[in-house]
């Protein structure tokens, strides 16, 4: 069991909370600072050639010089990612539900989905451009295709992991399939679903970028592609930094939603005053 400090029974005052927050979050910041320091040192003292790794200064300079440009392309990529993620979420949950409803549908649909997953999107992305043109569509489609599978797999596992006795209980209540789903299966599968969503949201970013690589003159993917072509490493890293930030922000948003939606789950329960250790 994880050891935790004993807490007093009194409710923590605002100041205590602040201290607690600082205690909880200094490590990632320290890590970030350390990473930055290493990056800086390595480039500053010429340990790595500039065309392999630009200095942090040059990288942020690249962003700063073209803030508007970055803002525009970031927005494009964000939009594609969110749209792709949303579609993947809805389709993935629907597919999982349908598959769990009937073993026959599952056996019919799974190979299809699996096939869609195992075809490397990076390889077929150029075909999407041929099929769907150069606009937003192929990029969102790639994002959806990449983000879709983790959602389905985790949701199917989640829906199947429901305590059989709870389902029996529901059937003695004359519950319709829909109600059983809404009130029992779905909430019970949330822990699984969210671990799929966390993967999916980061993959949606990748999907949007892959889509931009193959067809599209907008978005961070095309920024990176051009920078790569010119061997403009500061620009390349600037693109990567912005892209990573986007990914981190979206991931944290999913984690936040998780915390909000399932405070009851063992993995997220607040500690009780008298703490088990």
């Amino acid at each position, binding site marked *: 069991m994880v050891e935790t400090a004993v807490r007093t029974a009194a409710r923590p005052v605002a100041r205590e909370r602040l201290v607690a927050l600082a205690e909880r979050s200094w490590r990632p910041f320290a890590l970030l600072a350390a990473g930055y320091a290493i990056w800086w040192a390595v480039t500053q003292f010429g340990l790595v050639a500039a065309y392999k790794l630009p200095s942090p200064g040059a990288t942020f300079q690249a962003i700063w010089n073209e803030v508007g440009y970055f803002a525009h392309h970031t927005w494009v990529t964000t939009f594609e990612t969110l749209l792709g993620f949303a579609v993947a979420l809805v389709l993935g949950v629907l597919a999982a539900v349908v598959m769990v409803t009937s073993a026959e549908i599952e056996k019919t649909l799974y190979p299809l989905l699996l096939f869609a997953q195992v075809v490397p999107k990076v390889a077929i992305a150029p075909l999407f451009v041929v099929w769907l043109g150069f606009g937003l569509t192929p990029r969102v489609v790639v994002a959806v295709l990449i983000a879709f599978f983790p959602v389905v797999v985790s949701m199917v596992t989640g829906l199947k992991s429901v305590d059989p006795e709870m389902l029996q209980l529901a059937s003695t*209540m004359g519950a319709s399939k829909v109600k059983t789903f809404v009130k029992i299966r779905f909430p019970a599968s949330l822990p699984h679903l969210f671990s799929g969503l966390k993967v999916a949201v980061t993959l949606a970013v990748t999907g949007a970028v892959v889509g931009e690589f193959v067809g599209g003159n907008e978005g961070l993917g095309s920024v990176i592609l051009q920078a790569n072509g010119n061997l403009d490493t500061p620009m390349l890293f600037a693109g990567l930094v912005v892209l990573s930030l986007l990914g981190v922000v979206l991931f944290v948003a999913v984690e936040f939603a998780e915390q909000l939606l399932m405070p009851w789950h063992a993995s997220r329960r607040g500690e009780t005053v008298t703490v088990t250790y």
Partner: protein
Amino acid sequence: MTVTQQAPAVEIDKVAVRFRGKKREVLALEDVTVDVRPGEFVSIVGPSGCGKSTLLKLVSGLLKPSAGAVRLLGGSVDGPRHDVGFVFQRAALLEWRTARRNILLQAEMRGMPEREAAQRAGELIEMTGLTGFEDALPHELSGGMQQRVALCRALLHRPPVLLMDEPFGALDALTREQMNVELHRIWRETGTTVLLVTHSIAEAVYLSNRVVVMTPRPGTIAEVIDVDLADERDYAATMSLPGFATATGRVRELLGAAGGHE
């Protein structure tokens, strides 16, 4: 209450249940025949593992017999029945719902009017002494409290047939007595048909019209004992009636128990 010559509410007809596990086949029930009249209160007692829980699941249609047939309220049972209230042996609460919302699950699933359901839930919470813990999550409740939540849930919709699998097992003596009295009152007032699995012989006899005593696995019916007591029973007074002693004595004899726990 006078029991008239109606069709039985529950008919269990030469039923056998055989479970197939990985390595083993278990014959849980064999040649079990029981009829329960509408409005009757029947208790089932028997050794651990003799198939009592299995029997209740058969009646509710959650399990299909390997042989024989089950009829409930005049219709043959061939799928989950929802004209029952079922208390499982485990509390089986939804961990993300508070006590009250676990109880109201019954209402939500059945589409009962909200106002009525909320009021009824309030009454049951008070009756079972859960007041103050309506908003607690299951993991914040003691074992006995969880069991009471499950009990409230099964009673919420005033089911025509109540199937209860050791609903009072985790309760202390006093609470259990109070629950017994309440259950008896509800039964008399509503005419519900009740099938109760219990390990307490006194409870079985105090509450029932008849007590079904089962043999160890494979579960068969050892004897069905008629309880010779008036329908309206005072708890303490009943214990000293000769009918009570006769019935408990016979059950104890059949089970081979010395009677320490009864």
